[in-house]
C-alpha cells in the first residue's frame, strides 16, 4: 500500500508519557498543524517530514493510550483511526509504535494489539537511557527478529536513534510480522467471525477487516461510546452479549493470553537486575510522599504557584490594560466622535483587552503544569490528595485545576485536560466557577465595608467575612461535585488508576511549546467568543442612545437599563432595586464590571480603580421611595452571596463551551449556578428580614 501512495501516512502510537510528542516534534521539526477531531476535544496533530531518501512523508500523532479497548474519547479516536473508521482521517499506511523502554512490558501490550490489526509497524524503544540507567539490558536484534518488525532504540531528548527511525521509515515494510495474536479457542474464533459478519453488514467495520478488528468495537468501555453510531451500538451490544454468554470472561482471557506471550518474549530479550537498586525516584518519593513532608512540600509548591498566578500575573495584566487604554485614548482623540468610534474604543479595543488580560495567568499556570507534568511531580500531587478528593467523588487529578480556579476559572478549566476520566473532568469544569476567583474581589471589596462600616467592625471581622465567602463557595463546589456524582453522572464510574512515572529533569523546549499551544488555542478559539459576547453586552448598555443625556441617564435608557427595570420584580424579593438590576445584567460580562457600572449608574466620579470610597458613600445614601436605605447590611450580604454562586462571566461560558464542545454544558452550568445564586440570595434576604435585620 505504501508503494502506491506517493506520500505514505505514518501514525505515531504509544502509551501516555512515552515521549511521543518529543519524537513527533523531532521528526516534523515543527512542520505541524494542531486541530481538533470534529465533535470531541481530542487534539489532532498532523505534520510532514522528509525521509532519509528525500521523500516526503506524512505523519499523524494519535492520542496516547494504554489499550485499543477504548475507555475515553481519546482512546476511541486512536482505535477508529487505526481501524480506518473515520471519514476525516485516512487509515494510516504504517504505524510507528513508541514504547517506553523503562516500562517495556506494559508498553508492549499496545503493540500486540496494533500488530493484531495487521498494520505494518516500526517499534521504537524510547527512553533507552532511562532503561540503561536502571541496568536493564534489552536485546534489540533478538526482539526485532522475534517480532519480525524493525526495532529502533531511541533517546528522543538527545536525538539518538532519529536517523535510524527515518531510515526505517523510508524502507518499505517487511512482508509480515512474525507476531501472532494469541491462539484463540476455535469456538471463540467462530463466534468472533460471526460478529464480524454482523458488524460488516451494519457498516460498522470495513469489509476487509481483520478477524480481531470488530473486537475492539465490541469491547468498547467508553461511557459515551464516542465514535460509535447509535445504529451500530445495538448490534455491538448484541454481539457482546452473545460472546459473553458463550465465553464468560473472554475479554479478560484475551488480556491474560497477550501478557503471557509478552512475558515469554521479555524472558528472551530483557535482562533486569534481580534486586533493583535505590533510584533517585525512590529517594525523592521518600520525601514528597512522606506522611508529613509530603503534605508540607505540596503545600509549599501550591502556595508558590498560587501566589504567582494570583499576584505576579497582575504586573503584565496591568501593562496590557494600560496599553489598551492608551490605544483607546489615542483612537478617541484621532477619530471623529460617533457610533463607529464608540464601537472601536469601548467595544472592540476593550473586548480584545478583556481577552488578552487572561494571558498572563494562562501562561504562568500552564508553564507550571508543564513543569510538574514533565518532572513527574503532578502524579505525586494527585497521589497525595486523592483520598481527600474522593470524599466528594472526584479523583486526585481534579485538585490542581480546581485550585487554579481560585485565581481564575478560565485557566483552571483549561487545565482540566489533565484529568483523563471524562466524568471527573466534566464535574470539575462544572464546579470550577464556584471557587471564588480574583474577579470577585472588587465586588467583595466594595460591599464588605458597606456592610460593616469602619466604626462598627475591625479589619479582622471584615477579613473573616471575606473568608466566609471563600468558604461558602468551596463548600458549594464540594456539595455540587457530590450531587452531580450521585445524579447526572451516576453509573459513569471510572476507577482511579494513576501512573507514577520516574522523576525527570524537565525539557524546557517541550514545556514552552506546550504553553504556546495553549495560549494560542485560547486566543483563537475562546477569544473570539469572549470578544463577541463582550461587544454584545457593550452594545446593550449603549443603545438606544439618548441624545444630550448624561452617562447615568444614558445607561438607564439603554437596553441593559430597561432590562434592569424589567427584572426589578424578579430581584425585588432579594432586596434589589432596578439600578442593582442593571449592575447584575452588565456584570454578566465579568463580575468586577459591577463596580464600574454602579459608578456610572449613580454618576459617581469613578476615579481610580482602587478608590471606591465615593461610590461607597453614594451607596450609603441610596434610599427606597419610602426612605429605607437600599444598601442595608442584609442587601449587601445577599448581593455577595449572589456573586459567590452566579456565573457572571462570559469568558468562563466561552471556555466551557470550548472545552466541552457543546453549548449544552455551559448553559446547564449557567442555569444551575444562577439558579442557586438566586435562591440563596433570596433565602438570605427573606430570612434576614424575617429575623428583623
Amino acid at each position, binding site marked *: 500500500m505504501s508503494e502506491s501512495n506517493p506520500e505514505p501516512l505514518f501514525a505515531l502510537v504509544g502509551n501516555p508519557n512515552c515521549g511521543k510528542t518529543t519524537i513527533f516534534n523531532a521528526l516534523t521539526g515543527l512542520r505541524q498543524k494542531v486541530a481538533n477531531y470534529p465533535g470531541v476535544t481530542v487534539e489532532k496533530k498532523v505534520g510532514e517530514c522528509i525521509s532519509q531518501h528525500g521523500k516526503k512523508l506524512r505523519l499523524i500523532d494519535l492520542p496516547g493510550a494504554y489499550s485499543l479497548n477504548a475507555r475515553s474519547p481519546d482512546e476511541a479516536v486512536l482505535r477508529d483511526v487505526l481501524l480506518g473508521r473515520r471519514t476525516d482521517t485516512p487509515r494510516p499506511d504504517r504505524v510507528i509504535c513508541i514504547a517506553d523502554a523503562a*516500562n517495556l512490558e*506494559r508498553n508492549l501490550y499496545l503493540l500486540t494489539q496494533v500488530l493484531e490489526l495487521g498494520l505494518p509497524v516500526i517499534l521504537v524503544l524510547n527512553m533507552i537511557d532511562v532503561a540503561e540507567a536502571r541496568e536493564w539490558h534489552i536485546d534489540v536484534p533478538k526482539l526485532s527478529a522475534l517480532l519480525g518488525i524493525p526495532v529502533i532504540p531511541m533517546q528522543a531528548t538527545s536525538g539518538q536513534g532519529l536517523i535510524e527511525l527515518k531510515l526505517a521509515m523510508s524502507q518499505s515494510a517487511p512482508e509480515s510480522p512474525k507476531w501472532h495474536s494469541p491462539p484463540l479457542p476455535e469456538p471463540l474464533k467462530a463466534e468472533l467471525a460471526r460478529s464480524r459478519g454482523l458488524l460488516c453488514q451494519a457498516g460498522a467495520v470495513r469489509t476487509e477487516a481483520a478477524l480481531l478488528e470488530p473486537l475492539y468495537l465490541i469491547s468498547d*468501555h467508553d461511557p459515551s461510546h464516542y465514535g460509535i453510531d447509535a445504529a451500530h451500538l445495538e448490534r455491538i451490544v448484541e454481539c457482546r452479549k452473545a460472546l459473553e454468554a458463550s465465553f464468560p470472561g473472554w475479554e479478560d482471557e484475551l488480556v491474560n493470553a497477550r*501478557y503471557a506471550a509478552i512475558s515469554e518474549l521479555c524472558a528472551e530479550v530483557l535482562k533486569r537486575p534481580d534486586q533493583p537498586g535505590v533510584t533517585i525516584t525512590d529517594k525523592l518519593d521518600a520525601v514528597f510522599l512522606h506522611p508529613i513532608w509530603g503534605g508540607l512540600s505540596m503545600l509549599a509548591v501550591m502556595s508558590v504557584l498560587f501566589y504567582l498566578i494570583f499576584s505576579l500575573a497582575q504586573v503584565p495584566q496591568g501593562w496590557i490594560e494600560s496599553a489598551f487604554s492608551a490605544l483607546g485614548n489615542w483612537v478617541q482623540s484621532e477619530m471623529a466622535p460617533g457610533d463607529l468610534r464608540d464601537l472601536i474604543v469601548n467595544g472592540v479595543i476593550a473586548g480584545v483587552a478583556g481577552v488578552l488580560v487572561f494571558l498572563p495567568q494562562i501562561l504562568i499556570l500552564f508553564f507550571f503544569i508543564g513543569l510538574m507534568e514533565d518532572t513527574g511531580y503532578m*502524579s505525586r500531587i494527585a497521589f497525595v490528595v486523592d483520598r481527600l478528593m*474522593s470524599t466528594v467523588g472526584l479523583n486526585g487529578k481534579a485538585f490542581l485545576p480546581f485550585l487554579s480556579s481560585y485565581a481564575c476559572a478560565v485557566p483552571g478549566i483549561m487545565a482540566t485536560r489533565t484529568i483523563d476520566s471524562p466524568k471527573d473532568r466534566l464535574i470539575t469544569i462544572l464546579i470550577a466557577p464556584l471557587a471564588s476567583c480574583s474577579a470577585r474581589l472588587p465586588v467583595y471589596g466594595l460591599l464588605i465595608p458597606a456592610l460593616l462600616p469602619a466604626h462598627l467592625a475591625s479589619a479582622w471581622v471584615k477579613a473573616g467575612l471575606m473568608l466566609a465567602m471563600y468558604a461558602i463557595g468551596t463548600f458549594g463546589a464540594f456539595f455540587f461535585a457530590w450531587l452531580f456524582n450521585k445524579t447526572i453522572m451516576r453509573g459513569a464510574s471510572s476507577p482511579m*488508576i494513576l501512573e*507514577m512515572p520516574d522523576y525527570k529533569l524537565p525539557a524546557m523546549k517541550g514545556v514552552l511549546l506546550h504553553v504556546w499551544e495553549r495560549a494560542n488555542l485560547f486566543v483563537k478559539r475562546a477569544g473570539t467568543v469572549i470578544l463577541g459576547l463582550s461587544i454584545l453586552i457593550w452594545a446593550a448598555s449603549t443603545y438606544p442612545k439618548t441624545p444630550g443625556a448624561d452617562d447615568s441617564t444614558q445607561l438607564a435608557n439603554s437596553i441593559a437599563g430597561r432590562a434592569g427595570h424589567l427584572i426589578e420584580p424578579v430581584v425585588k424579593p432579594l432586596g434589589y432595586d432596578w439600578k442593582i438590576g442593571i449592575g447584575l445584567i452588565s456584570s454578566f460580562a465579568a463580575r468586577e464590571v459591577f463596580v464600574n457600572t454602579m459608578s456610572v449608574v449613580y454618576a459617581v466620579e469613578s476615579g481610580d480603580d482602587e478608590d471606591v470610597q465615593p461610590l461607597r458613600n453614594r451607596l450609603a445614601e441610596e434610599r427606597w421611595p419610602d426612605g429605607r436605605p437600599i444598601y442595608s447590611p442584609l442587601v449587601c450580604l445577599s448581593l455577595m452571596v449572589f456573586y459567590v454562586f452566579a456565573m457572571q462571566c462570559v469568558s468562563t461560558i466561552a471556555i466551557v463551551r470550548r472545552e466541552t464542545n457543546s453549548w449544552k454544558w455551559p448553559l446547564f452550568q449557567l442555569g444551575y449556578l444562577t439558579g442557586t445564586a438566586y435562591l440563596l440570595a433570596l433565602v438570605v434576604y427573606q430570612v434576614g428580614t424575617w429575623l428583623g435585620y
Partner: protein
Amino acid sequence: MLPAPKLSELPAGDSAIIAAMPCGRPALTRLRELGLVPGTRVKVVRRAPLGEPIEICVRGSRLAMRNHEAAFIELAAS
C-alpha cells in the same frame, strides 16, 4: 480455610503473586491491561499519607490505585 489475602491488605514493602481477579469488571480489565494478570508478582511500594491510594510495582512499572479496586485482587498465600 482462611479467605485468600487481598492486594488491599498487603503491607507496604511486601510482594506477592496475583492468584485471581474476578472477570467482567471494566475497572479490573483496565488493570489487567496494565499488566496485573493472575500469575504476576506485585509489590506494594507505599500507601498515600491518608491511607489511600496504594502505590504498587508491577513488571517494573509503578501504578497507584484505590483500595476499592485492590480489594478485588486475590493474592496467592506465600
